[in-house]
């Protein structure tokens, strides 16, 4: 509960943060809400020599509709701010609802979407939602900016497509009303033991196409391709159970711990896939 010595710098701009990151090299770490990084530092699982605080940077804030009709969220927006966004509640309620179901009030008041995505805890909620929404992750590095689709961004446990000298600046995605997230909470941490996000394109009572992603069950957030395929053309909500049935069995790797064995998590993946699909269809 006592971290090693570190230096703390508060960046005044994203550009300054980038410079500090480069200067600091492998010793340097960005600090956003600190709700993943600081617990690790207190347990000495992370021992960065330099913390660069980007938490309050205006450039990383805001939730708005872009000119091409997408919704963009700045990396430093907290879960609580996202949960309270009217824009999200009307255009993409899945995002606001998921943020509202993260941890507890203290965690939501500090933790940020950028931190959550960059950290990529296997049980984090927002990664699955971003994958289901086919969100684009905006990244800034010494060589300028680049964009990565969420599905490619999450690669493995705590591993994302992000250089040590890069900053996630935000995410953007198409508005989508008929999407929902359902999670089984790990009872201590409230992270997802299994969480499934489903984003549907609905055509009356049937589903024309779908993106479904799971978190918690495996090393990282990933699509459930079999479920997506089965949903194409399925009539909903009746067809949800059939489409979701094999969801868990199709996963290559499944986490296992005190809170849930592999077989339980596989079974729950199917249950929560069905619940997410039903909830999303109910919005249609």
């Amino acid at each position, binding site marked *: 509960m006592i971290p090693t010595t570190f230096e703390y710098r508060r960046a005044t701009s994203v550009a300054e943060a980038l410079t500090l990151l480069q200067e600091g090299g492998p010793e340097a770490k960005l600090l956003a809400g600190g709700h993943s990084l600081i617990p690790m530092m207190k347990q000495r699982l992370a021992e960065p020599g330099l913390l660069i605080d980007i938490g309050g940077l205006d450039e990383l804030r805001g939730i708005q509709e872009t000119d091409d009709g997408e919704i963009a969220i700045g990396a430093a927006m907290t879960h609580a701010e996202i949960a309270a966004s009217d824009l999200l509640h009307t255009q993409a309620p899945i995002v606001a609802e998921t943020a509202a179901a993260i941890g507890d009030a203290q965690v939501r008041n500090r933790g940020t979407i950028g931190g959550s995505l960059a950290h990529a805890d296997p049980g984090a909620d927002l990664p699955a939602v971003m994958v289901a929404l086919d969100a684009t992750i905006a990244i800034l590095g010494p060589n300028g900016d680049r964009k990565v689709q969420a599905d490619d961004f999450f690669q493995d446990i705590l591993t994302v497509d992000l250089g040590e000298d890069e900053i996630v600046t935000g995410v953007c995605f198409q508005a989508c009303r008929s999407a929902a997230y359902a999670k*089984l909470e790990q009872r201590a941490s409230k992270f997802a033991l299994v969480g499934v996000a489903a984003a549907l394109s609905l055509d009356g009572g049937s589903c024309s196409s779908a993106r479904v992603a799971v978190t918690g069950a495996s090393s990282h957030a990933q699509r459930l391709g079999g479920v997506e395929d089965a949903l194409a053309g399925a009539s909903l909500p009746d067809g949800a159970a059939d489409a979701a049935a094999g969801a868990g069995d199709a996963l290559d790797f499944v986490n296992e711990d005190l809170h849930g064995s592999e077989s339980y998590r596989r079974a729950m993946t199917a249950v929560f896939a069905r619940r997410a699909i039903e909830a999303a269809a109910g919005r249609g």
Partner: protein
Amino acid sequence: MTTVDGPVLPKLIGERVKRREDPRLIQGQATYVDDIKLPGMLHLAFKRSDIAHGVIRSIDTSAAAAMEGVELVITGAELAETLGPMPIGTPFPAPDHYSVATDKVRYVGEPVAVVVAEDRYLARDAADAIEVEYDELPAVVDPEAAMEAGSATLHEGFERNIAVESYWGGTGVNPETAQPEDDSAVDAAFAEADVVVSQRMLNQRLAPNAMEPRGVVAQYEPGREYLTVWSATQNPHILRTLVAAMMGLGEHQVRAVAPEVGGGFGCKINIYGEEYVAAALSRMVKAPVKWIEDRTEAFLTTTHGRDLLGYIDLAAKNDGTILGLKARIIADIGAYEVLLTAMIPTLTGLMMNGVYRLPVVRHELTEVFTNKTPTDAYRGAGRPEGLYFLERAVDMLARELDMDPAELRRKNFIPTDEFPFATQGGLIYDSGNYEPCLDKALDVAGWQEMLAERDAARAEGRIVGVGLSFYVEVCGLGPSAVVPTGGWEHSGVTVERGGKVTATTGASPHGQGNETTFAQMLADHFSIPLEDITILHGDTSVVKQGIGTFGSRSQAVGGAALISAAGKAGDKMKQFAAALLSEHEVAPEDLVFEDGRIQVAGAPEVSKTFAEVADFAYIPVPLPPGMEPGLSEESFFEPENNTYPFGCHISMVEVDRETGEPKLVKMVAVDDCGNVINPLIVDGQVHGGLAQGIGQAMFEEVVYDEDGQPVTASFMDYVMPRAADLPTFELDNTVTPTPVNPLGAKGVGEAGTIGSTPCVVNAAVDALAPFGVTHIEMPLRPERLWRLIQENGGQS
């Protein structure tokens, strides 16, 4: 009737007076150990074992010692030259246990070396810089396997890791010989039974998790050879006695202070190695030193609770009459015996008599060492374990006989006219009146409606169950014959000049609200306003003597001492008042305290104000013949017996068919703790107790892997119950006063943890009964319940 001017003071006993201590606690104005900062104070950090079992091959402290700002680095072996093995408070044989391990480590978290440094961060860095090499030994994790020949052993001289073995049984204990009267009666009872239910049950290991972790500041002043120790402890006087002994000092050379203490739940009864080490190192480095436990250390090194495995058999006739009970209990006590470790599981057997007439009992107990954190008291301390085993077994019997669980219990209750009642274990239940309590609980809960609601829910395909438990527990520890530290309590009452009152109590509160309840008692006793009373506690230089707060004793024993001291002070005050009223020729016996005056009963005009009499006591001119000046009295109260509160808890649990997630939807507690001084505080105690009892039933468990590594050493894995996990509690009570103290109060600190645990598990088993389930191990993990449902093909 004539009246005099002045306020009319309402009686406060029995009123819901808000806790006077809360404003400072919730506004950050209280002083906890960590708030204490002394000039020149240094900080300790402990290097702790990261393996469960091994021989220390070498410790290299050179890098740590070389760090700037590090005052001292000392290993366990070096410290052992100054500090001997730690004392324990039970008569059982125990292996040597040093504050800091000398040659072998026996659990993850056991200290092996200590750093003294200028600040806490540096101390921790230096501790990390200490290199320890171990020859690892196989970890002993399963208590049953630990007893088998061929298992690795923790301690020399404790074959098969067995610390304590005890056995008693038959038709009762012969008080002369402490031997069973007729053990063959047990087999006979089981042979003649129509039905026997048998179950192996685990009462799992728990972490007490006080909100404030442990902490200690020690200051040895070489000049006056005097040691002051501030510690987050439940019992500063015991701390003083034991630290003095370990330091080779007399009690007159030690002051122990428990400042504000943020919860104890039993884990702060024990006097820990860190407390002795802080004292010894302060003397060694000639500076005050501080150690504050962090949460990881709290999980690893603060005593755990429970961890009893029970093999329970209950025999009965077809009509539900219970014929006998057999209990074989294995207590996994962890790596060492600390203050009360070995005693706690012995309470389990004693309390397994419950509220029933049990014709015969056989009780076998084995306490076993394993490579885990030592266990000691945890809220309920032995009773929740016993009552869990018993109340689960009784529930299984009800199911087996297809009887209503309430009616089966009623049939076997100890009848009211048999109190005081001698149990098979030799306890004497002071008073009891169980049927009205059961009836009230059934009524408050709406038991029949609950059954109908359950059945309707089942018809809809939902998984719902109802549960009931009826407990009796033991409170008010004493008397001295059964408490190793002495079972009395001490109090002092001083009526100050101006008529204000200062009282001291040795029952050192750490969340119990005694500053409020004790002030209520004095306010009524002297008929003065609550604001005129200060209750002091927690400092051995202020509170002359004391035992402490544990075993739900502060009201029943501490409160009785207080009222006794108040009685003495009041009697003397009446003598002074009689002298002041001498022209009216009143005798002290004719005087009463009423609305801030001391008056002749029924004649307020013949009176003096409380303040006038107090002032006279300190300037007694003329001094009444035969009297000493002043108004300061004290009392030791030695209870003649324990008290035995009881209660009935009822709950409803719904389980998600697809996920196995349990939800507690209703929780009713009707408790009888005798006379109640402050119902608001009693409710608060019950609320907290219920949360912890439900926590055990549903959420909490300390888990070790096969290497003895803890896997639940943070709140990210150890599931604490939260407000949102709990329904609104429905509370009520009955009142059966105890005859063993003048207050008639029994104690309520632990009640909630005792009744609620079996109650909630009984409800969960009832919920899954249609799936053929007869028992579920705690905690009610969703996956565990889901598997039970799946095993039945998901079909009820």
